[in-house]
């Protein structure tokens, strides 16, 4: 059993990587004539400065929690699900259609039904990619990328045509009735109870891989497929299941966006949550709680970006640079450790502790 103390080096290391990313991006800002102190103050203020900015940070991290967790399901099974984006669209779309079709019915029935339909749609898409991988021996990355296009363009067709809201200039569906939407935790913010769902899914994910036979089988296939097969695991079914679960959790990212923020399915509403989720899962070391922490970090960076560009006159793209540097430093331990070692050696040489 691992205790919290065992995770400490990892947490310290992640922190060190963030500090490094801030230092390097400060250097870049200085080079292009910006004031890094002003920029990061604004960034911090925008992410944590007030109740509203904190709510904004949390709400921006929700979709990343889901896509990050989704990716970890596949990753544990040794699969690279780059199809989170497509699964997210299909899931959100299916949920929207169910909710719009059942207008007038009680919310206690419609909401779970809508969410489950969306998860089922995302899950089927993921599972189908798994099936193609095992049966036709095509790499899942290729298949998943293709299905991303299919899912995005198919939903785009529907909201541009048959399901386009009446009189709307933008491609989007009718508004989903208020009763079916996630409740706001704080008024006048986008923070909804979807946050709780994200935390519940994280705990469930932890439990699933730690305690259940199916979770164990997925991990066994990911670690050593031959040994898993010899032990009695059905590789085809387990691969499909891992991809299917991954797809249904990815779908939740789309569902919570639509039912929590946009209140309708809008064409191309995701700015690549499915892809960012990959980085979130990798940085979170595939651990559900690490993924939640990373999603919060990314949420904070995104939510602070706006303030940064307003207050310090720095392009919000700079946040992308910071994000990229965090990923770089966390994903390449050798660089981070090397830099810290070099600094320490230098200090010792100068006789400072």
């Amino acid at each position, binding site marked *: 059993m691992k205790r919290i103390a065992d995770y400490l080096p990892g947490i310290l290391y992640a922190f060190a990587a963030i500090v490094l990313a801030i230092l390097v991006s400060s250097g870049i800002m200085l080079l292009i004539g910006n004031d890094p102190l002003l920029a990061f103050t604004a960034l911090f203020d925008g992410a944590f400065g007030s109740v509203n900015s904190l709510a904004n940070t949390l709400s921006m991290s929700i979709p990343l929690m889901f896509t990050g967790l989704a990716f970890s399901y596949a990753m544990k099974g040794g699969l690279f699900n780059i199809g989170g984006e497509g699964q997210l669209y299909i899931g959100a779309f299916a949920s929207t259609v169910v909710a719009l079709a059942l207008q007038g019915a009680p919310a206690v029935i419609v909401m779970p039904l809508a969410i489950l339909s969306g998860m089922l749609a995302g899950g089927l898409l993921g599972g189908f990619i798994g099936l193609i991988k095992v049966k036709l021996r095509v790499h899942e990355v290729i298949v998943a990328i293709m299905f991303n296009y299919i899912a995005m363009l198919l939903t785009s067709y529907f909201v541009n045509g048959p399901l386009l809201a009446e009189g709307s200039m933008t491609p989007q569906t009718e508004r989903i009735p208020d009763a079916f939407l996630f409740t706001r935790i704080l008024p006048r913010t986008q923070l909804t109870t979807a946050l709780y769902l994200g935390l519940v899914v994280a705990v469930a994910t932890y439990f699933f891989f730690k*305690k259940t*036979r199916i979770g*164990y089988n997925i991990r*066994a296939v990911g*670690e*050593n497929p031959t*040994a*898993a097969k010899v032990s*009695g695991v059905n590789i085809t079914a387990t691969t499909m299941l891992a991809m299917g679960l991954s797809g249904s959790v990815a779908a939740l990212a789309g569902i919570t966006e639509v039912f929590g923020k946009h209140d309708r399915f809008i064409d191309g509403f995701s700015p690549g949550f499915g892809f960012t989720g990959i980085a979130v899962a990798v940085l979170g070391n595939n651990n559900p709680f690490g993924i939640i922490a990373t999603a919060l970090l990314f949420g904070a960076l995104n939510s602070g970006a706006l303030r940064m560009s307003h207050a310090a006159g720095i392009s919000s793209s700079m946040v992308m640079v910071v994000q990229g540097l965090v990923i770089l430093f966390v994903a390449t331990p050798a660089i981070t450790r090397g830099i810290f070692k070099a600094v320490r050696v230098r200090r010792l040489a100068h006789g400072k502790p």
Partner: protein
Amino acid sequence: MPSIEMRGITKRFSNVVANDEVTFCVSQGEIHSLLGENGAGKSTLMKVLFGLYKQDEGEIIIDGRRVDIRSPRDAYHLGIGMVHQHFMLVNNMSVLENIILGNEQGNVVIDKQKNREIVQRLSALYNFEVDLDAKISSLSVGMKQRVEILKTLYRGAEMIIFDEPTAVLTPLESSQLLAMLTDMKKQGKTIVFITHKLGETMAVSDKVTVLRGGKLVGTLDTASTTPEELARLMVGREITFDIDKKTKQTGEVVLSVQGVKLMPNSQSTCSFDIRAGEVFGVAGVDGNGQQELEEVVMGLTGCKTGRILLNGKEISSMSVAARRKLKIGYIPSDRFKQAILPRYNLTDNYLLGNQFSDDFVKRGIVSHKFLKKRAGEQMKGFDVRFADDGQSMNSLSGGNQQKFVLSREVGKNPALIVACQPVRGLDINAIQFVRNTLLELRERNKAILLISAELSDLFQLSDRIGVLYKGDLMAVRPAEQYTNESISLLMAGREAGDADETDR
């Protein structure tokens, strides 16, 4: 005058001392066997010499000059090469390409003709008979090893270190290798081979150095020692090679294989029964249907002809999981690939193959308490050396991993044990342990299917032995009715001439 001297070598891995002030000297032109049990520090010592590890203390002197070997490249410059236990070959490249890889002749464009001539000359010199254009993936294990040897020769090694070279070979390939070693000695090469097998040490070496628990026990002239003395030095106590197998009444038929065709081009089908309390041995040269037999019994491959019954119940069409539920213990021939999850902890590994048992998993939820308790008990009972059940499988030594697999598979209390090459790669203590375990299971009225390449094991443990040749069961007889010669003939696909030797 020794050509290589390693003096007072100490190598530590965190808090484990792998080599403790070991001194090791090799003279030019000799075959030197480095003998010791699993984990005695043999490989570590040689990896220091080959530049893969850096010693913490001690020095290496070559031809009277103190040297600093920091990498295999340095080692090759000093004329030292190494053939690893796990081959380091590129599977989809040809033999020639693999040999010259990293050391190609020619400036920008590789001079294939020149390279080929050099390699051909070397190959002919030692009678290697390797097809230089064959893809590595198409070669047998023995051939791959020859390619590895050619690689070291091509790089100009004068002294070659072999890390447990016979561990992966069939008996025939092993004897060919030993002959090759002698040839290489005649050409003036110096050979060090790491082993825990007494037979081959006695057969080819000039000198033998024994290590135990990371310490040097001594260096002896092979001619003036005996296997018994070496075994005692290696293990640290007297051990006996005789096994006490009691005659025993067998019970009901447990496993019945009826008319199963093992290989697509087998002449006939294969049928035999194993009763409770019986060890049924399967002999044969590797690749004659042993793999197919273990797979078809476990359900890893489908059974197209014939049927398989366990305790009278047909299992031919059952999934692997369903068969696992019937508690068949299975020790696969390739344990590293087929029986463990290297990076997962010991507890997780103990669940592998048990996850379909109701004792371990109730309504889909793993009962960790039961799992940990059972795993701990079994591992202790089988003397698996571990510090903490949270440590990863690959932190255990090879011998310990095998004991772990044995503890897990026997711990199920199965009616049938399928044991494939159960002593392969083990040291004397562990071999003795595995043999005793199998006999104890026989005492406890279990049925045991023992597939082994070691004839001595088959003769000592089995009640009856079947001989496989090209997927056909050549004969099934009580073990004492075979002689070494008659079984060898059957393994080569020939019947003994005697009319009174009847089959089945």
